[in-house]
């Protein structure tokens, strides 16, 4: 295993080396970050196919790095709350029977080919969101808010209703509630769009904030990739929470702690190393994910903070351009440099996850020994 990893690293290094040594590349190495435009300002453009015939060679990896990190960040924004919430719920509240059924379903979700996810996101979800911007925004705002309100309001439900709607089975009876909420959110959308945004949210956003809504944008990528990353984070975090010694949770509850207090004060701190490494491994997958970004992002190498613009990641650039780049040329070596950067990044993230996990674990075992 280790040998294979080392062999991959050596191969990439050997292929990339001619860019720097002995003769150097056919273009100045500063072009890898930025190149001056007409007025001398630095410009970040990825035009590797014109390295040899353009007046100013431009092969800035900056927009690709930016796109990669932006996509991964949005994926994690989507995935972390959902995956961790699901893990906490299923390890603490859910009935074991239901949990035994749900886990295989989530594994199926993990097994979903990413090209299918990307296809759906890029060709169905993206254009739909672009056309139904108000409805989408309405769902995004209403759903989390309503769920929090539901959770707060649950304790005031009459006891008989509570007996029917137990928390153990919340995963089942919440589904119709959520569908109802989605329907509500969508049907009120045209009303508030008319009241506050002159009936066209898209134009309003553009005129007042200067933000343009593209059909394939960072948010869509984040949504699809979040979906792909959730099962992995969930599985690891769930395992970490289940591994917490039963005595700890039972002890806390015996002392009068509620289940929520048990979770936040006792179980989460103990399981933190596992949860942390679950997130890190999710991040590693999001950074290296290719097909979803390739199909849902539009692949324009932009460097903007707007989540409604497209982006281009390192991995998808490699997938698009490598089959047609002449082996041995500067373009080819640049793409392998991008591959090397990806390799180094995932290597670092995974090592970091492992190191932090080991350290936290040591600390907890030591504390246990002291007690």
């Amino acid at each position, binding site marked *: 295993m280790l040998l294979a990893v080392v062999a991959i690293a050596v191969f990439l290094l050997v292929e990339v080396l001619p860019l720097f040594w002995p003769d150097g590349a056919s273009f100045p190495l500063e072009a890898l970050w930025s190149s001056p435009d007409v007025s001398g300002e630095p410009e970040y*453009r990825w035009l590797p196919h014109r390295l040899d015939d353009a007046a100013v060679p431009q092969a800035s990896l900056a927009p690709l790095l930016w796109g990669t990190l932006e996509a991964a960040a949005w994926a994690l924004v989507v995935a972390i709350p959902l995956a961790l919430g699901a893990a906490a719920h299923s390890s603490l509240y859910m009935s074991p029977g239901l949990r035994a059924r749900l886990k295989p379903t989530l594994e199926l979700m993990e097994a979903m080919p990413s090209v299918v996810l990307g296809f759906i996101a890029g*060709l169905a979800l993206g254009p739909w969101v*672009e056309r139904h911007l108000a409805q989408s925004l309405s769902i995004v705002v209403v759903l989390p808010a309503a769920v929090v309100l539901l959770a707060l309001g649950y304790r005031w439900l009459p006891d008989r209703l509570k007996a*029917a709607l137990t928390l153990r089975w919340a995963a089942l009876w919440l589904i119709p509630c959520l569908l109802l909420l989605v329907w509500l959110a969508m049907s009120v959308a045209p009303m508030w769009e008319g009241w506050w945004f002159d009936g066209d949210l898209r134009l309003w956003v553009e005129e007042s904030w200067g933000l343009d809504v593209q*059909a394939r944008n960072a948010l869509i990528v984040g949504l699809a990739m979040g979906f792909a990353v959730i099962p992995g984070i969930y599985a690891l975090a769930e395992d970490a929470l289940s591994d917490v010694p039963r005595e700890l949770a039972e002890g806390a509850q015996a002392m009068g702690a509620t289940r929520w207090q048990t979770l936040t004060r006792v179980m989460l701190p103990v399981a933190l190393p596992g949860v942390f490494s679950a997130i890190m491994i999710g991040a590693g997958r999001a950074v290296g994910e290719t097909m979803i970004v*390739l199909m849902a992002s539009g692949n*324009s190498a932009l460097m903007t903070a707007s989540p409604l613009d497209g982006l281009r990641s390192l991995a998808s650039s490699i997938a698009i351009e490598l089959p047609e780049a002449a082996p041995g040329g500067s373009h080819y070596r640049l793409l392998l440099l991008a591959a090397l950067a990806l390799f180094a990044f995932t290597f670092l993230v995974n090592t970091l996850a492992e190191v932090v996990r080991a350290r936290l674990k040591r600390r907890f075992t030591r504390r246990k020994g002291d007690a």
Partner: protein
Amino acid sequence: MSRLSRCIGALKRTLLAPSRGPRTLSIAVSGEAPAAVSRVAPGAVSRVASRLVSGLVLSAMLVSAKVAAHDVAGSLDAIGSDTMAELMLRWGEQFEEQRPGVRLQLQVAGSASAPPALIAGTTLLGPMSRPMQEDESAAFIERHGYAPTPVVVGKDALVVVVNRHNPLSRLSRAELDAIFSDTLACGASESIERWQQLGLERPGGTIHLYGRNAVSGTHGLFRRRALCDGEFKVSVMVSAGSAAVVAAVGDDPAGIGYAGLNHLNADVKAVAIGNAEGGILPRRQSLRSGGYPLSRDLLIYVNRPPEGELPDVERAFLDMVLSPSGQRVVKELGFVALPPSVLAAQRHALGLAELPRDGP
């Protein structure tokens, strides 16, 4: 209330019924990527189909399609353009009917793969959707001592497409450049970012640009001809195939893109390109006359020694390609067939017999 709890109980029972095995969900993914490379009949494609094709084109792009090879004596090899893949396949089928037992072995990996194969002698026919570059033909001459023979077999054009609801009908060359590039090499004074700058009320807002990936021949042709060798804006959304560009523009009221002529469908509208006097639509007439600025020849490069003859099979194949039935295939696939005069000239150059004047 009790009814509700009973209902939930029933739900639990059905979901957790122990007698049933684990529910599985199967996802079927069609594996016919190579067959779907570009079987897109113009105008007749439903939206779903074109989306499917655009997805499959992507997979076909990554795996160079290779047609099953049967080792029959007198097999015919061709290596080259993926734009012309469907065309070559159809000609191959037609040729097989004429000469049973002869099979066309086609490798499509892009126009750039044709010259090396011709130089190395692995094939005598190299379909290309662009003329050979200087260095490519120089390398050929160095190896063989004579120049490769280009045979024009049809015409293709790039069309600028907008959503079918877009009122835009015409763009000047300078406007086109100002929309797609930020170098403004064709003489426009300022970049065009919004539809309002073209004097359109609808579809308001920013223009969404769609195009091809930088290594494709379509991208190169558009950059040279439409952008006057300038450079594209960074904000162009890059798709893996012409069909994907058309599908994206068909879905986006504010979109504009460029694609091969044969990919046009009912969701998008072709925009006339022209100068101050008038616009030219990519119609058969303007393409034949060369008036449409974004047209290109579809070529088959042939390795033919100046005083020798082509082998019998290759010769018969080109004879069929340059015949009315071969040209009908060109038309059927959404490209433009050659006018009779050009056809006759091509046949003459190859030393083929003249076509009967009152042929079909």
